């Protein structure tokens, strides 16, 4: 038991460090150019926010259409903390997350009474209200003209080095987010949260404190979204309230649904795919969004449960099996032959 507890984080740490080193090396050598590196970082930020949305929508079953509102609170708080109060970036991000989670609790309260579409439209309203407030708090947020000159992660003249450092920040927080969400889901409160999604009344009658666990999910999710927003603020260096409109929130819902509601792996895959496909479609110029919309409809028609539905892919399990030799050539051939024999038998029966 103890060995397992030590073993899993080590594998995770090793895998994430290796991934980071590979990507950093690719950035230094120019395999990933500046443009794609920037996209990758942006995808990381989108995944953080989509994961937090997945925690609310995919695991707790509450549809939220105001994620951009959470994100903007985090973004503005972090930016203002850094610019006005000279707080180090890391603590500014944490403060951004904490302030956002206060908003999360505020939005969480109506969810105790509202259901389904009513909740969705309430969160939509909250997002819009936050946006209007940001525009009208001109002294603090720069108002409609936006907040400019947000400091960078690290002051350097070397573009590539900065690119790697920026990616490192986002990647680090992404790994933390994945760990927080997946551990929360596997823990006892996480099971309670999932039971609320499956049937609120039944879980209530089984003695689960529905109100408490809903609020827990909202608080954690808004904290993560706030950190994502803070990273976005430093990433882009410029904030404007019009960015965080309704369609921006829809992006995150699309990422979560495309990946599969209730699948962390799915969100990660579709977050990367979403960011890059949107950029790839720029070739089509004016037709870009038409094709994007059509793709959305077609994917939903033929793949209504998303890419991964509710399945997960665990790196730790995969690595363990690989170490134990499950993926050696011999084993794979064995497995294939077993499958083929089973298939032949099936045909004979027919």
């Amino acid at each position, binding site marked *: 038991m103890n060995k397992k507890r030590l073993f899993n984080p080590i594998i995770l740490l090793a895998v994430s460090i290796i991934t980071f080193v590979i990507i950093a090396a690719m950035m230094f050598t120019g395999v990933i150019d500046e443009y794609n590196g920037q996209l990758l970082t942006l995808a990381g930020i989108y995944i953080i926010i989509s994961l937090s949305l997945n925690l609310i929508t995919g695991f707790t079953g509450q549809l939220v259409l105001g994620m951009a509102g959470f994100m903007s609170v985090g973004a503005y708080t972090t930016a203002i903390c850094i610019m006005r109060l000279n707080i180090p970036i890391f603590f500014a991000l944490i403060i951004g997350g904490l302030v956002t989670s206060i908003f999360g609790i505020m939005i969480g309260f*109506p969810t105790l009474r509202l259901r389904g579409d009513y909740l*969705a439209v309430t969160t939509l309203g909250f997002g819009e*209200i936050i946006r*209007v407030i940001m525009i009208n708090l001109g002294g603090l947020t720069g108002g409609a003209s936006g907040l400019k000159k947000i400091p960078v992660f690290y002051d350097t003249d070397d573009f590539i080095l900065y690119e790697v450092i920026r990616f490192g920040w986002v990647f680090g927080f992404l790994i933390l987010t994945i760990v927080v969400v997946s551990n929360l889901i596997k823990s006892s409160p996480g099971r309670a949260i999932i039971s609320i999604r499956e049937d609120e009344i039944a879980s209530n009658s089984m003695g689960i404190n529905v109100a408490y666990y809903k609020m827990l999910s909202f608080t954690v999710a808004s904290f993560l979204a706030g950190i994502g927003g803070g990273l976005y603020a430093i990433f882009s260096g410029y904030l404007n309230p019009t960015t965080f409109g309704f369609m921006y929130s829809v992006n995150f819902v699309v990422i979560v649904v495309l990946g599969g509601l209730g699948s962390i792996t799915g969100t990660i895959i579709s977050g990367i795919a979403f960011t890059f496909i949107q950029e790839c479609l720029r070739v089509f110029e004016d037709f870009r969004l038409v094709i994007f919309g059509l793709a959305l409809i077609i994917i939903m028609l033929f793949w209504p449960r998303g890419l991964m539905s509710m399945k997960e892919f665990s790196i730790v399990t995969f690595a363990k099996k690989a170490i134990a030799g499950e993926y050696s050539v011999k084993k794979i051939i064995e497995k294939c032959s077993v499958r083929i024999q089973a298939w032949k038998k099936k045909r004979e029966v027919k």
Partner: protein
Amino acid sequence: MKEVAQQLINGLSLGSVYALIALGYTMVYGIVKLINFAHGDILMVGAYSGYYVLNTFGVSPLTMVIAFGVSMVVCAVLGIIIEKTCYKPLRNSPKITALITAIGVSIVIENGARVLPFMGPNPRQFPTFKSVSRVYGGVSISNVQFLVFGVTFFLMVALYYIVNHTKMGKAMRAVSYDMKAALLMGINANRVISFTFALGAVLAAAAGVLFASSYPSIDPLMGFMPGLKAFVAAVLGGIGSIPGAVVGGLILGVAETLTKGFISSQLADAVSFGILILILVIKPTGILGKNTREKV
């Protein structure tokens, strides 16, 4: 006091347009439990259809009637096509899937209109009656506002008649009450659903022409904001309830113009959404929504 009355009239005129759009949302929701996000874009298509008619034949009461007719037919057909191709295959999948599809449809219509050579991304001037205002006891009402009130009133009476006094209306009510039971009673649910989409689209088309007449500038994205507001109005009144949509639309329109007139035009959106949240927290199913208890 006069100014308040003036703003009330303006608010009611805006609110009745919202109400017309909200009716489409609420009827569709009542039957298939789907938030049809493309509804605002149907309004845009309606406005453009009206624009082409009025541009070709000039503005007169007769061409106005033709414009209404043409845009209603175009939108009804569009509504049925959208329903048959995009929503029907998803009737049994999770709600959120249908929601994403609806957003996809909305993106396609908005941006499709932007790339179509005869529509294009640039705003256009909508040809309409020359504005003539009459003053009644210090409150001025323009002819366009009279048109808005008249058409809205007529359409609502017609809708009331269709829903409550025709066979199709009875079938609509039956399907929205219990689709399975309605199917067992021999009601062709597919036809009823298509009819509902067409009816909603007809109302949106009329709302589009009216909206474009009141604010005479049209562009492919014009449907987004009224659509969102009308959706809020539908939820405010209790989504699925037809009188609720009317009440919600009027409240939202009046609240918006009063805020614009007396507080700040920037805060108008915040106030309307604030009202929504307040009412939903007090009464979770909207003003006239039915409070269905979930049974175990």
